[in-house]
């Protein structure tokens, strides 16, 4: 199905072939509109291979491919005497093919680089990234996003909130096994202050569509970090390990995660 209007297509034609100096302004805007969200979803689907942070780079690569090939490979494919192809549906189909092939290439490159999955063979079926069940991906992201909102809006201590965010990141983004995540977190953060932990997590969260802090949520987290810890330091200045209970780091983290997960489950049920 075509995702841009007839009017937008007429404007693309006008900019490329009618104006004195050809330009691609509307075409770039259409590519943005049609593919940005799809590419982010695609990166999310293939997060075990491709970091979500690549989404914008991939979009840029696709924009370049389209604006440098649209005239030669689509509009004037049959030469200057062949006339300009002004069929918007065919153009949509051409763009989808370009994007599909480019994403396939990128996936293969990353798979080889990660050496986790063998390259896709010519005879193997390739799941078209643009026609996979993007609704399921959106739904998954929405659930994670809602869970995150519950956690960040809860009046819980900063170290517990940061623990939940870190475990989610490790599990969904870095592929940690749920049963090992407590150990991973101890290793990654025990010597970091909560301020350092927050900054690291927010940098990583920038790459995740479902983990975006609003200004209000960031203020809430910061207020929690500013709470007094021992009379001389606020919580943000304290190392993560100082919050561990006597039972140890892993046990504390599991306990905090369970508390937050129960909170999320209750909120989801209601």
């Amino acid at each position, binding site marked *: 199905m075509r995702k841009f209007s007839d009017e937008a297509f007429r404007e693309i034609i006008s900019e*490329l072939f009618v104006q004195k100096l050809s*330009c691609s302004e509307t075409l*770039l805007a259409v590519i943005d509109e049609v593919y940005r969200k799809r590419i982010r979803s695609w990166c999310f689907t293939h997060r075990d291979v491709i970091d979500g942070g*690549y989404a914008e780079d991939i979009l840029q690569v696709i924009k370049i491919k389209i604006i*440098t090939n649209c005239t*030669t490979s689509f509009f004037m494919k049959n030469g200057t005497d062949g006339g300009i192809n002004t069929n918007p549906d065919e153009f949509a189909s051409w763009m989808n093919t370009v994007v599909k092939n480019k994403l396939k290439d990128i996936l293969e490159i990353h798979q080889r*680089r990660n050496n986790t999955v063998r*390259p896709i063979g010519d005879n193997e079926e390739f799941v078209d990234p643009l026609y996979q069940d993007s609704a399921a991906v959106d739904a998954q992201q929405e659930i994670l996003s809602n869970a995150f909102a519950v956690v960040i809006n809860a009046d819980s201590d900063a170290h517990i909130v940061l623990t939940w965010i870190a475990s989610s990141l490790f599990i969904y983004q870095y592929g940690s096994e749920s049963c090992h995540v407590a150990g991973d977190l101890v290793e990654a953060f025990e010597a970091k202050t909560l301020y350092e932990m927050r900054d690291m997590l927010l940098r990583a969260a920038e790459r995740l569509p479902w983990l975006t802090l609003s200004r209000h949520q960031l203020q809430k987290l*910061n207020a929690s970090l500013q709470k007094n810890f021992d009379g001389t330091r606020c919580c943000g200045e304290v190392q993560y390990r100082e919050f561990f209970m006597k039972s140890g780091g892993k046990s504390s983290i599991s306990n905090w995660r369970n508390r937050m997960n129960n909170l999320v489950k209750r909120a989801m049920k209601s």
Partner: protein
Amino acid sequence: MKHLTPEEMINFISISELTPETLALVSKVNTHIRQCDSCLTKLQAFQFINDELAKQTQHVEESLLAYELRRQSKTGQTISLDRG
């Protein structure tokens, strides 16, 4: 009419980022080829060869794209936060 130079065509098919300079080149090339069959045909040939080479290169070594993406990821995005 002044035709596109081979260098301009190679620069055009080698564009790797969108900057005012590369967009100006895209504009120049697209403006020209819409009325010049000779340059349009040459550019189509350049692009075909470039695509074929890219396909072969992909099976031999990591592509420049992957390298570029990795380089960009290493530079990383930073976020500055107030401690207040």
